[in-house]
């Protein structure tokens, strides 16, 4: 047991001739809050999409709780045009669809909020309970699963209460204010009973006060639900306050990683964000 919950090795994602993520390796340990930062277009969301099975990485592998979850190598047309390294290192193709990965215990939120906008707040959370319920179409249709159904409803309701959203349960998700939608998306992800939560820019579009609240909120859910959190974020206040470790990505490549202090003072990080002047 090496203690890490997520380990990605040599993840490379190439779209046509574009290297979105180039040979990225990282580890997230149990109970940690880890941030992935980098300038716009650095490949952060693509890395998330690779880990959650939305994209099949071109090369590399991902372990979850020390078990191989995803592995791929350049195949088909990509064999010819592959520009990354470690082309021959991986030989297996292990793919899981996003729903299977969620079932393993990785939940995520999205950069541009993706709620079920025509459904109520309660239903949004309730959906997450569907995958683990013991039922089939017949028992569900004729309510022979009422025990399961009641359990699902109860758990969803408990979750909403813990998130102080119980009073909103019958509101249509799409009509909620932006900040609450973000929180609902996190609540919905929590409802899948994850071990690891991936947050894609949770503070996007929030003002400093809301960001501060979010910081506390993230810490709190980590403790309440014994979670490990891996997030993409641009708000440096939030990142520096909350993260145990930070990975910095630029043009698809990992440029450095370490504690917030170390990263903050790293010249390469400063260069990546501010650019290097021509005559330097």
């Amino acid at each position: 047991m090496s203690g890490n919950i997520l380990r990605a090795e040599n993840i490379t994602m190439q779209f046509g001739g574009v290297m979105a993520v180039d040979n990225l390796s990282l580890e997230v340990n149990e109970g940690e809050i880890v941030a992935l930062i980098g300038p716009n277009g650095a490949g952060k969301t693509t890395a998330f999409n690779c880990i959650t099975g939305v994209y099949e990485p071109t090369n590399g592998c991902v372990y979850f709780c020390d078990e191989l979850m995803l592995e791929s190598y350049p195949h088909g047309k990509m064999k010819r045009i592959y520009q990354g390294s470690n082309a021959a290192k991986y030989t297996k193709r292990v793919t899981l669809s996003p729903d299977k990965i969620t079932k393993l215990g990785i939940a995520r939120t999205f950069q541009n909020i993706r709620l079920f906008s025509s459904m109520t707040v309660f239903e949004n959370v309730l959906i997450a309970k569907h995958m683990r319920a013991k039922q089939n179409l017949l028992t569900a249709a004729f309510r022979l699963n009422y025990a399961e159904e009641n359990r699902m409803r109860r758990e969803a309701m408990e979750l909403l209460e813990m998130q102080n959203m119980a009073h909103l349960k019958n509101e249509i998700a799409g009509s909620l204010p932006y900040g609450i939608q973000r929180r609902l998306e996190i609540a919905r992800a929590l409802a899948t009973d994850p071990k690891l939560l991936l947050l894609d820019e949770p503070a996007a579009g929030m003002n400093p006060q809301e960001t501060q609240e979010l910081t506390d909120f993230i810490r709190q859910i980590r403790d309440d639900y014994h979670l490990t959190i891996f997030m993409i974020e641009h708000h440096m206040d939030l990142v520096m306050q909350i993260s145990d470790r930070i990975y910095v990505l630029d043009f698809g490549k990992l440029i450095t990683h370490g504690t917030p202090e170390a990263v903050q003072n790293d010249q390469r990080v400063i260069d990546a964000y501010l650019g290097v002047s021509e005559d330097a």
Partner: protein
Amino acid sequence: MSKKANGIISALLLLALFGLVLMLERTLPPTHIALTVLKKGCIYALVAVSMNLLNGFTGLFSLGQAGFMLIGAYTYGILTIPVADRASVYQYFDGGIVQFSVPVIVGLIAAGITAAFFAWLIGLPVLRLKSDYLAIATLGFAEIIRAFFQWDKLGRLTNGSNLLRKFPTFNSIAFPFLVTVVCIGIMVLIINSSYGRAFRAIRDDEIAAEAMGINLAKHKRMAFCISSFFAGVGGALLAMYQTSIQAATFRSSMTYEILLIVVIGGIGSVTGSCIAAFLFIASSEWWLRFLDTEMYIGSFKVPLLRTGFRKVVFSVIVMAVVLFARRGIMGDREFSVAGIYNFFKKKFGRKEAAK
């Protein structure tokens, strides 16, 4: 208003409606157009709800409904023609190969199962496609099915391009009503179950649904099969209503008509589809019929009125709904006793507050 009271009143209302329909059948002459409208309307309501389950609730834009109805109709016909009549029906094919017949109910269920089975088969490849590609692929599938059932080589089973007839039909309007109510009832139960929620999640956002652990392929196929099952039952009912089956009548225009019913009723509303089905059939077969006959007011001949004008006016109305009332009659809401109760309560309450 409590949920229980709502349920009881809805059930009573449905029962009263059923009684009214039976009474109409008793009092009206058997050939009265209203009865035709009621029979055909309730069959179309069933098929429209089945299409709505797929297009409205799961967000899969499929245009294969006529194909699945055809499969249902043929399955029913092939299985239920009495053995004694097979020789005359299959006169060009030595009496056919099926030499048994099953009771009506078994035939109906078999119709649904066969349609669902075909849906499962075609769903494997086709459901991976995105919106409009799915539409055109399912439309194509319906055309293939139609050609297939008219194929001479299968004549011993399908009677080729000849009619299938002499299978049991219904006399009373109660039969199609009962079947429709049961089928729609089951569909409503499914829509309101955990699986129905999963379907709606897929409609709202596929990627988020998948991230919530919903297996897209499995649930889409499930919705497709359920929808096709009931389309198959609807096809069998239509065959009973028409008393004969011919593959050539299950054209894509039939699918379009059902789609328009769904749109008029409101995509995502079961009650909307039901109401729209009756309105659609009533206006196309009955209320607008006067447009098809020449009319004189005094010596003045009203222009334009002649055979076919009804359908033109009708399609203009349909276009108007599609363009200007995009949400249809019901939008995605449902007609319910509780809804009406709350509506009046609100109005009443507001008046009281104004005082």
